[in-house]
């Protein structure tokens, strides 16, 4: 059994506690990064959600775990709304595989 992790600023992640996510607050990117590494190391998490505000500033740390089957690290919009970072990730995956952006051309 794996847990569902959540990293983000307090106001964004508070509600997810009620859903039973393992919520970890981070006040800045540094803390979020350290949290991410710690959570991955425990190997108890199958999915770790990170709010976009942090995720976009710690791309390197996230891409470290990209080619592993677990955990899936997914960015979701925080309370400031979507900045399109998650969508960008999909696009870059397409570009990596196909060699060109075939999905968002329009």
């Amino acid at each position, binding site marked *: 059994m794996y847990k569902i992790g959540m990293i983000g600023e307090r106001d964004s992640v*508070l509600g997810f506690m009620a859903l039973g996510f393992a919520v970890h607050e981070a006040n800045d990117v540094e803390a979020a990064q350290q949290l991410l590494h710690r959570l991955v190391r425990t190997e108890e998490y199958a999915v770790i959600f990170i709010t976009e505000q942090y995720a976009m500033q710690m791309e390197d740390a996230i891409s470290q775990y990209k080619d592993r089957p677990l955990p899936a690290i997914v960015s*979701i919009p925080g309370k400031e709304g979507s900045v399109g970072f998650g969508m960008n990730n999909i696009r870059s*995956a397409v570009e990596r595989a196909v060699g060109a952006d075939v999905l968002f051309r329009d």
Partner: protein
Amino acid sequence: MAQLRVNPTRMEMKRLQTRYQTARKGHKLLKDKRDELMRQFLDIVREDKALRIKVEASLADYYASFGIASAVTGPQMMETALICPKKEGELDVVYKNLMSVTVPEFRLQVRTDGSRDSYNYGMAFTSGELDLSLAALGTVMEDMIRMAELEKRAQLLAEEIERTRRRVNALEHILMPQYLEAIKTIKMKLDENERGNITRLMKVKDMMLQAQLRGKREDEEEEDLTE
């Protein structure tokens, strides 16, 4: 292009020809694999994209309603209400083999403590808005997990596609031309040797004929003298 250095022998040529055939078969198989990977990848990515749009919209709604709820209830109260949840979301992970790529499949399991309502706070101190916004969040949860699964798959497949494509290209543009080139070189060398041999034989035959002719002529001259 770096050329393969080979011995110009028939055996070597035979060996290279077999290797070339193998490379060609492998190339075809890998190309098929790449195409199928690509097809599955695009399916996944399309679904992922649609799901992400949906999830992001629902989350935006949730944040809005949660903002109102916390404005009505007050931050202190909100925290006490939410901090110890009744539910515990857990994931069962099953590994699937997708075109020789190991991908995880997540199954969401929510454990509750058995009581009927899922709210982990009393109704007295919190506003109804909070109930509503959390209910909304609950419906997104499953989509979020599915999205995580799809995104992970997309990443893993993208890596595999990249690798396969590189292999296909290496076979197509480097290995196979190299073999062909080497086979051609050997063939030319062998032909050249063959021609050399024939010329030599012709020359030897010529010399032998001339020697015979000369011998005959000398015999005739001797006969003339004795007569």
